[in-house]
Each structure stands twice: as C-alpha cells, then as structure tokens.
C-alpha cells in the first residue's frame, strides 16, 4: 500500500472540493477500495471519507424512495419500505458478500465496486487492459468462467460483480451525483459502461463526481419481485448468474415487466429486448423462454462460460414463472 492522507468530509461541498483533487478517492466502507489499495491496484494519495454523509432513507411524496449514498447495505436491506415495496432490492443486497461486509459497505461504494476478474487482481503477473490500458487481456484465453457473455469487447470480458446494482437496474433507479459544476442525476443503467476500447473507464461519472443518493421511482408492481442468485456455494460467492425481476399481470397477460441480469456483462444488464417482447404476451413458460432467447441471441460466450447462456435462460424462466405463479 502506498502512503496517503485521510480526511473526513464535513458535507457534500467539502467532499467534492477535496475529491476533485488529482489522485483523491472517496472512501465509503472501504471493503473494496482498501483491498484494492493493498493490492496496489488503486494508489490514491488522498482518501476523502464520505461514509459520514447522508445515509437517510426517505419516502417522498411522489412515491419514490431516496437513499443516501452513505447508507450501509444492511440498513437498506432492513428498511421497511425497501422490504415491502422493493423486495428484489432487499434480497439482492442480502445475497451479496457477508454480514460483516454488508454492515460496512455503503450504497455509493457498492455501485462503484470493481470487477473480480482474477487477472485484473494479479498486478504483478498478468496482463490486463483495465489495469494497464493497452497491455492486453489475459482472461480471454485464460480462466474466464466468471466472465461476460454479453456486451464484452476484444479488450475486456470482465463482469460487474454487484448484486445490488442488478436490482437497481431493474427498478430504473436514478443516481444523484454532485461535482464542482453542480448536481445531476444519471439513470443507473447509464452509470456503468461497456468496456469497448477503454475498459479502464468504467462509469460515466466525471472526475471527482460524488454520488450523494440513489432514488427509486415508485413502481407499485415491484411489491412482488424476486432476486435470484446462482453461485458456486450457498453464500459468500459472487453471482455466476443473477436475475432481478418484477412482473405485472393482467388476467394472465404481461402488462409490464422489469428484468435485469447480473454476472453477464461489464454492467448490470437490463433486459430491454426481453421486456419489449414479453409485454402483451401470455405469462407462460413458452413466452418467457422465447423472450429470454431473444435477449440472449447476441450472447458470445467464452470457452469456460458457455454454461452461462443456458443457466441465464433457465434462471430467467424460473424467476418469471415463480412471479407469475405468485400472482395468478
């Protein structure tokens, strides 16, 4: 680990002033950043601790829910409004990491956690375009069982590891950010980027922009929603595939549906094609299958992760069938 300075931000303005300096980084719970610093993958010279900023969870009049970026993952998952109105989010968070990590991790940090690609982590011994642009990618011909099947590029095939973000993508959540030029909101589906030629650029945040809150728009039918995570052991493992979904039926016909996939791409994957194709269709296994096949038509698996395509299909169909069964 390199040496660095540490300061707690007094408020958002203070945070942004400190955070926009070169080589400064915001510190949430530190469960990802500190690990990366130990591995020297991140070498900030200043840490601006934003874990003391707003962690409030507020139900607003328009029916949306505003979650302060410093809210701990556990606090979000336990919050009554989240559990009753957005159960897929509570379940996604609880499916991640461990109790200890969730107690530390913040919403802001969870959004910006970095990939678990093992070649990315192997600073000394492997090539990685994300870590060292232009170096090459050792994962493409190496161990790529946990890597992407959608939206990858010849530069990078990594996945975004978060569970929480998959639920947020399904919910059309908005990310509130503040920078030196003021505040704005970004749809969570636009926050993360596909790797393209620049896997080192992971988000559409501007330098020094601080995440202050996440907003969940009202979505009444999300009361019945599911997050299902498929993994190599029953807990404390990242998703091979995960599915966040909410389904709105009207007499057996799909009125509305929200679905996002985790473990498949460099960002949480909102299944827009599937959603479009399902709307107005009968809620049957056949239409679920047809829709997910359409969504995954462009999947380009790697040598070790071919199973993910089939697994994603099966999991999506099971999740939608479960939701449809619950409703009908």
């Amino acid at each position: 680990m390199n040496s660095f300075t540490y300061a707690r931000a007094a408020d958002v303005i203070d945070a942004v002033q400190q955070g926009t300096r070169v080589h400064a980084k915001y510190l949430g719970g530190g469960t990802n950043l500190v690990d990366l610093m130990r591995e020297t993958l991140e070498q900030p010279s200043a840490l601006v601790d934003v874990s003391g900023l707003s962690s409030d969870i507020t139900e607003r009049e328009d029916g949306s829910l505003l979650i302060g970026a410093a809210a701990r993952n556990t606090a979000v998952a336990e919050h009554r409004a989240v559990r009753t109105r957005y159960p897929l989010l509570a379940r996604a968070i609880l499916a991640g990491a461990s109790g200890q990590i969730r107690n530390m991790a913040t919403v802001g940090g969870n959004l910006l956690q970095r990939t678990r690609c093992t070649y990315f982590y192997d600073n000394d011994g492997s090539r990685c375009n994300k870590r060292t642009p232009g170096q090459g990618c050792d994962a493409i011909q190496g161990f790529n069982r946990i890597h992407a099947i959608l939206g990858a590029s010849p530069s990078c095939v990594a996945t975004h590891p978060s569970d929480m973000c998959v639920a947020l993508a399904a919910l059309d959540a908005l990310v509130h950010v503040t920078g030196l030029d003021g505040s704005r909101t970004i749809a969570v589906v636009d926050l993360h980027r596909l790797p393209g030629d620049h896997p080192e650029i992971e988000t559409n945040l501007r330098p020094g922009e601080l995440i202050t809150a996440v907003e969940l728009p009202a979505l009444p039918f999300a009361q019945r929603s599911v997050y299902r995570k498929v993994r190599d052991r029953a807990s404390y493992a990242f998703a091979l595939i995960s599915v966040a979904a909410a389904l709105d039926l009207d007499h057996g016909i799909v009125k509305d549906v929200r679905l996002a996939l985790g473990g498949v791409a460099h960002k949480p994957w909102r299944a827009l094609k599937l959603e479009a194709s399902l709307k107005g269709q009968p809620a049957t296994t056949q239409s679920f299958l047809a829709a997910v096949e359409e969504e995954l038509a462009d999947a380009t698996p790697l040598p070790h992760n071919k199973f993910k395509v089939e697994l994603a299909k099966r999991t999506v169909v099971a999740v939608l069938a479960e939701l449809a069964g619950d409703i009908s």
Partner: protein
Amino acid sequence: MSIKETAQAVMKKAVQIAPDALMPGGAPDPLIRQKHGLIGTPVSRLDGPQKVSGTARFAAEFPMEGMLFATLKYSTIPKGKITNLDIAAAAAAPGVVLVMTHHNAPRMKPAPAFMSSAKAAGGDDLPIMQDAEIHWNGQPVAVVLAETQEQADYAKTLIGVTYETEPAVTAFEVAKADSEPGVFQGEPLLLEIGDADASLAAAPHKVDAVYRTPRHSHNPIELHAATVGWDGDHLLVHDASQCVTHTAWSLAEVFGIAEEQVHVTSLFVGGGFGSKTLWQHQTLAAAASKLAERPVRLMLSREGVYRIVGGRTLTEQRMAIGAQGDGRFDALIQTGVVAMGRHNNMPEPFILPARSAYQAGSFRLDVEAAKMDMVANTFMRAPGESVGTFALESAVDELADNLGMDPIELRIRNEPEKDPTTGAPFSSRHIVEAYRAGAEKFGWAARKAKPGTHREGEWLIGMGCATATYPYYRMPGGAARITLTADGRANVKIAAHEMGMGTSTTQTMVTADRLGLAMECVSVDYGDSHFPGVVLAGGSQQTASIGASVAAAYRKLITELLKLAGKDSPLHGLDADEVIGRDGHLCKSDELERRESYVSLMARIGREELTAEASAPPPLEFTHWSMHSHGAMFCEVRVNAITGETRVSRFLGSFDCGRILNPKTAASQFRGGIIMGLGLALMEETQFDERNGRVMNPSLAEYHVPVHIDVPEIDVIWTDIPDPHAPMGAHGVGEIGITGVGAAVANAVYNAMGRRVRDLPITLDKTLPELGLVP
C-alpha cells in the same frame, strides 16, 4: 531390484511371518483393558481458554527485541533467469533495512527434501535464493526487511525484476507425454497381481472410466509464519510447524551448523493439514536475519501461501472393475497420472486405498508422475486416499448400479478376510459393522434405487455412500521423557505437535490413565525441538507415536522406581509389567489392594524427581498386520433442477478407528475432515494457468471452501472397537474424515439426477448440461 530394495523386501517378509509376540502390539496395551479411566470420556481441550482469550501465542506473535518485518517478492515466470533486479528504490524506501536477493544472500545448502532422510523437512531441494534461476511461477526472488510490515510491503512494490524466460512445462497434457513411475516412501507405486486386463475383458460386468481431481491449495487459518533470531551461531525459530525436530535438523543442514544449534518451537499451530513443514520462508527469514543482524518475523500473505507452499496435485485416474453377476470382483484396475514438481518426490499415491479395500481376482494399480515446472506439490489431508477413494468408490457405485445391487451389499460381498494384496492378517477391521450402523442411523433404506426419482419442488434429492479408509501408521523415531515429582505429579516432554486436533489434551488423558493419576496431576509439554523424539504430526500417526513413546518411557520409569523402592515397598518383587497405575497409586495389576502411592514411593526413594526417557519400539506392527481405519460415509444431496446447484443436506460418517480416546476432539476431527471433503467434492480448485504456471485464485474470496451454510448437520458415530495391536487400541483420526467424501457426494448426485460427474469439483456447469434444456 537394487540391493537395498531386495534387502527391504526380505526384511518385510521376515516381519510379516514373525510370531505376533515379537511385534510391538503383540501383547495388547494394558490401557485397552482399563475401562474406568479418562479414556473414552469427552474432555474439552485444555488449551481452549487460551485460544478463545487470545493468550495462546502463535508463531507470528512472538516479540523479539529489535525485530524486523519481512515480506517476499515472487517471480512471475515459471522458468528462466533473472537478468536484472532493480532494488534501489526499495532499499531507499522509508524504514527499509535490507533487501536480500540472490546477490547478497548468505551461502546456504538446499533444504533436504521431505522423505529423502529421516528428519528431512523441505518441500523441495532447490537452492534457496542462491542464483538467478527461476524454477516455478511464484518463487521468491527478493526479501525486504523493514521496521514495520507496511513499510516492507510497500517497498516490495518498488522492486523491478526482468527475466529471460526459458521453455517451461506448465500444461498437464504436455507433461503427461513424459511421465515416469511414481515412487512413494521408497516403494514403487505399482502393484500387479494376476492379469487384470484379461480378467477385466472377460468379466461379464464392468465399469471402466476416467476420473479427475484438480489441484488444491493449502488454506489453514493461520498463515505460515516464522519469527527468528540468531544468538551467535545459534538459531531460534518460532515456527508454525507440524515437524519441529525435522525442521531443526533440516535448517541446521541448510546453514551448516549442528542440529543442537537450531531451536524450533511451535506451541500452537492454526492448522497444518500437511502444509506446515519447511518451505522457503523459514530459511529466507533466518538468512535475512543473519545479514541484518536483527531478529525477523516473516508471515506469508494468503497469496504467499498459494505461491510458495505446495498443495495437493491434480490426478487423472483410470478406474476399472470387472465383476461376476453376483458382484464378486475379478479385476481391480486403478492407474493414472499425477502432476509433480521437478524437485520433490510426492506422486499423489491415489492407489493406496485399493490395495486393501476389496477382495479381487486380480489387481493392477499404478501411479505415474508427470513432472511440471510448478511449486513442489505436497501432502494434504489424506494424500492419496482422499482422491483415490473418489475414483474407487464412485466406480463401485457405478458397478452396483449396473448390477442392480445395493452399493453397500456389493461392498460387503467383496469384503476380504485378510489383506488382499499382502496376505497379512487385518489387525482390526469392522467395516461391515460400520456400514450397518451408519445405514441404520442415516435411514439408507429410504433411498430410491432408481436415480432421478425423488423430487421436492425444484430440488432433486439423492443419497450416496462410500467407504472411507486410511492406514494406521507409526513412524520411527518416537521417544519421550517422563518426570515424576515428589508431590505425585508427572510431566511428559515430547517433540510433538498441537495443531488444533486436541493432541495435548488427549495425550494428557492417556498419560494420566497410564500412570493412574488425575488429569490435573499430569502435564504434557510439546512443540519444541529440544524435547525427545522425532514425531511428525502427519499420516495420522502422532497418537500412536506419542502413545508408544510414552508407554516406553513409562515402563522405564516404573522399572527404575520399583528398583529404587527396595524391599520395604509393598510392591517389592514386581516388575513394570506386573503393576498398573490407579488413583495415584501403583498397584499389582491382578491384586489391586497391593499398592503404594507415588507420593509414598517418591518419599521412600528420597528423590524430588525421577526422570526416564525412552524410545518407542521400531514400528513393525503395521507390516506384520494390515492396519487400517475405516468408515462408511453417507450423504444426501439436493441438486437444483433449474440451476444445477448442488447442496449437501445431510451427512453421516460411521467410523471404525479403534478405540476413541476423546470423543469430543475425535468428533471434531471427523467433522472437520468431512467438511474439507465437501469442499473437495463441490468447490475447491486451484486455478493453475497452464500458459505460464501461475496460480490465478490465490485468495479465499476466489478459492472456494465451504462456508457455514454449505455445511449441513454432520452426524458422526463409531464402533469404538479397540485395535488389539495399536497403542491404547487407538488409531489416528485426523485424516480418515476427508476420505470417501468426494465419492459419497458424487454418488448422491448420481442418485439425485441420474448422471455421473467424474470430474471434481462438482460445480453447476457440470451438472447443468445433464438436466436437459430449459424446463
């Protein structure tokens, strides 16, 4: 055969045919008869309070005056030469006291490789930072010493290394083309009886398949560590060790000093499993300490353990059984290849279980080693048996399925009367009882014989069983010292190890029973190379080795005590074999009222203390008899019909391991072994990148071991039938628990979904394709 091999074979034969009475264990240990002592009662570990209160001091917790902290830099290529080492920035970094590389390291000899001589402890016998050569990806290339750990770790990142790479063999398929016969503990891993191929071909029923097990890395909770200091040319090492005496001797060889000049202590060890022997870090710490003239602490990082401590190697096993319609085996074939480092000698001996598990008309068992440029592979809990039973016991299950027989009945049908390959009589074998009791308790009768027919919701449910087996060993070199004091207390000193198994507790119980003293009156000191004995905590042999050593020392002590006690003692005229200890007294064994207390005896001889030291008899018993532990493993799994995820929902181990000395610590050993076996079955796998021999998942986040929720309720039961020929009637219980688990799980998966997975670990990508397309 060489002259040496011929001589060995003749010796072996002589031991086999010698009369029982001449063998150690020929006369049963008197403790076996004793029914009212501590043995067999559940005693909590004596060091429990120290461990939970944090006062137990582990290797990396010893402070030393002026101590420096060390860190290692590892190579990133598998083979070649270092052409340039840029250490200037590191040397100039804050707090750095020394950067040691092959340019300035003191001259040292390679560590003698394990099993190359009686006290050799080295993982391999490569030169340690003596030249520019790189032998594996991850080899240490520099040591940084600094005032704090953080300073050392940071400075390390400033070191630049350039290499000239040379062609390396890092792909198993390439290495296999050049494999050579495996030799284990001086014996070739090859056994042929009859014409197994012909018998297989002629057999009306057969299975013949290839099974694979991957590399595993060691992950004891306590990282490997050593705190070392020199006092002139005397070296003190606080190590995390399962072989203190071996390590002291081997380090003495490395530094060219006398064995007595090296003092290794290891009081507490946070798990060993075969990994806590001598790897490069202890030597490098001592060498750097010598250069810096200050004590050094070197604790490996988790990554460091994956890079420089070997693990279990991969195996590829052909397993074939030919059988008659009634299930009797005509042929048993288990042959295959394992990967092995170039500078060690540990061809994972996966054929060991098949040598004595079943009667068969013919055998062909063979292990070949394919040499690769990789860190020396090594022992890991039940090396050989844990992966060998996966193939053997899966194949038996496959055969049972072919024959339409219950797999337990098929096993019992092939139960041998004497050792099927050596002809030696079994010392104690109650595997059938273990199966019957296990089946009853587990509810085996409820198993659906037809696979894939038990479903609850999304879950396909199956049951499987498998035989567990592990040999009884006792290695040469055991010795102990007992001191009896005037207040009627006894102390034992022996260079043995407590790695969390409960050894110190159990041996205190055994010694107390042997002397007839209360537990509070007995102390056992261990974990110090200056104590008597060469006692490896490995091969599940410590219990027997300590037991036999203490028994020998006890006998000498009592002989001396009775001699000195003289005519006035009520015990006058009796020898050590005619007395037993009971309630603080020595008593005539068949006339308990004729007795005298230790306090009185000591007063009579007018001594403050009386000490005796003795060596255990040579370990001939397990050549004379065929001595093994056994178990029957039962498993229930649930395979998710949608995702292929496999979860173990119930497990039971039914063991036959002689007399159980301490049910509490033994149960933990059994359960721990089974849990490790669940990891082997379902998730453990070292990702060794075959392009450059680099381990890609050197962390507990990416290298999966079972977490709590992966572990179901595990029931353990045992026969508790003493082995009349083993000290205390007991067998070691540390390793058997992992054996058979892989097959029990795989067999249950088959029973659940009707497809075989012959390639561990059973991850969902292997079960998924068998579930058919989307439901």
